[in-house]
């Protein structure tokens, strides 16, 4: 059987409960999950020819060029070269959408074009196609800093607040908040993982645990399951609000999609 220090999580819960008021790490101390990786996992992310996430980028590139739907149009037909048209896009999502009257994430934005412009059925959340298109678009923003979208669009403010409240709320049978792990206990070990500051810089990402590429919502769902809290349906506004808050916390950090994480 795998060995791990029993009772560790119990000790961690106590430590978190006894913790002082929550403070966000100041910008200088913000660290992406990448910095906490072991050398071999870092190497896997760094080399495009060894990073399994790049297989989905290739998939996305093919889908980008392929006509679909009753309009018979490809993404490329309207948007041209993604290296130009999609550069920086992933660094400023979730973004406010007039039609929805609230922020939507990149996956939802892609599906809007699928439905409205290509006249094709929406792609399912976590489907290989949607993850591939999303990672292909996110890849075009690699190394670009995450934008402070809230500063540029006041309408996002209430949703940012909602996301922050979700992040700080204790939940689940473990009665822990996201912030307790990701702001007070980052750099500590939990089972085999080092807890990070939860910066969403590398999504969609290749997670060794999943053995595949997955979205930020899938990662958030994993943390909720870990807390034995209720999960939301994929695409739920709660996930988008959380994502908005996480992106805002990570503003200025570079996009690294597709990241590799344990």
């Amino acid at each position, binding site marked *: 059987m795998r060995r791990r220090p029993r009772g560790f999580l119990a000790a961690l819960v106590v430590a978190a409960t006894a913790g002082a008021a929550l403070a966000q790490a100041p910008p200088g101390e913000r660290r992406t999950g990448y910095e906490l990786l072991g050398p071999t996992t870092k190497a896997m992310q760094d080399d*495009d*020819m*060894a990073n*399994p996430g*790049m*297989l*989905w980028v*290739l*998939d996305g590139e093919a889908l980008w060029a392929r006509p679909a739907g009753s309009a018979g149009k490809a993404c490329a037909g309207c948007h041209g070269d993604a290296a130009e048209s999609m550069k920086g896009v992933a660094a400023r999502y979730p973004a406010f959408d007039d039609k929805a009257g609230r922020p939507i994430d990149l996956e939802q934005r892609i599906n809007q074009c699928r439905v409205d412009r290509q006249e094709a059925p929406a792609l399912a959340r976590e489907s290989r196609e949607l993850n591939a298109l999303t990672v292909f678009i996110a890849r075009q923003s690699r190394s670009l800093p995450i934008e402070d979208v809230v500063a540029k669009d006041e309408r996002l403010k209430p949703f940012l607040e909602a996301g922050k409240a979700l992040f700080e709320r204790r939940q689940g049978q473990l009665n822990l908040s996201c912030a307790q792990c990701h702001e007070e206990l980052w750099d500590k070990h939990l089972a085999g993982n080092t807890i990070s500051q939860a910066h969403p810089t590398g999504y969609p990402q290749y997670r060794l645990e999943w*053995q*595949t590429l997955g979205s930020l919502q899938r990662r958030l769902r994993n943390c909720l399951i870990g807390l034995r809290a209720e999960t939301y349906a994929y695409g739920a506004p709660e996930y988008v609000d959380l994502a908005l808050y996480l992106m805002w916390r990570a503003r200025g950090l570079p996009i690294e999609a597709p990241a590799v994480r344990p």
Partner: protein
Amino acid sequence: MSRALISVPPKAKKGEVVQIKALIQHVMETGFRPNSSGVLLPRDIITSFKCLYNGTEVFACEMFPAMAANPFLTFHTLATESGTLEFQWTGDNGFSVKESAKIQVE
């Protein structure tokens, strides 16, 4: 459709040892893993891979369920002459993928 990423240096000197990297998309379902109702998911893996250099086999391998998903391999070959490197993966359920890359040897 399974994607593959192949890295071969486009140019090499005659007699130089070059490194080749091959990454392919595949779940590598072990056949030992139960689904949520306890039923074992049937095995679905890549069982063999080979690399031909202008038709001659320079590397081959047999793989088992203990290979990680999306199998990754690196190996070396002597740059002997200009031509084509061919890569072939085969596996369960008729899985078969071929890719190729050019190398210029001077």
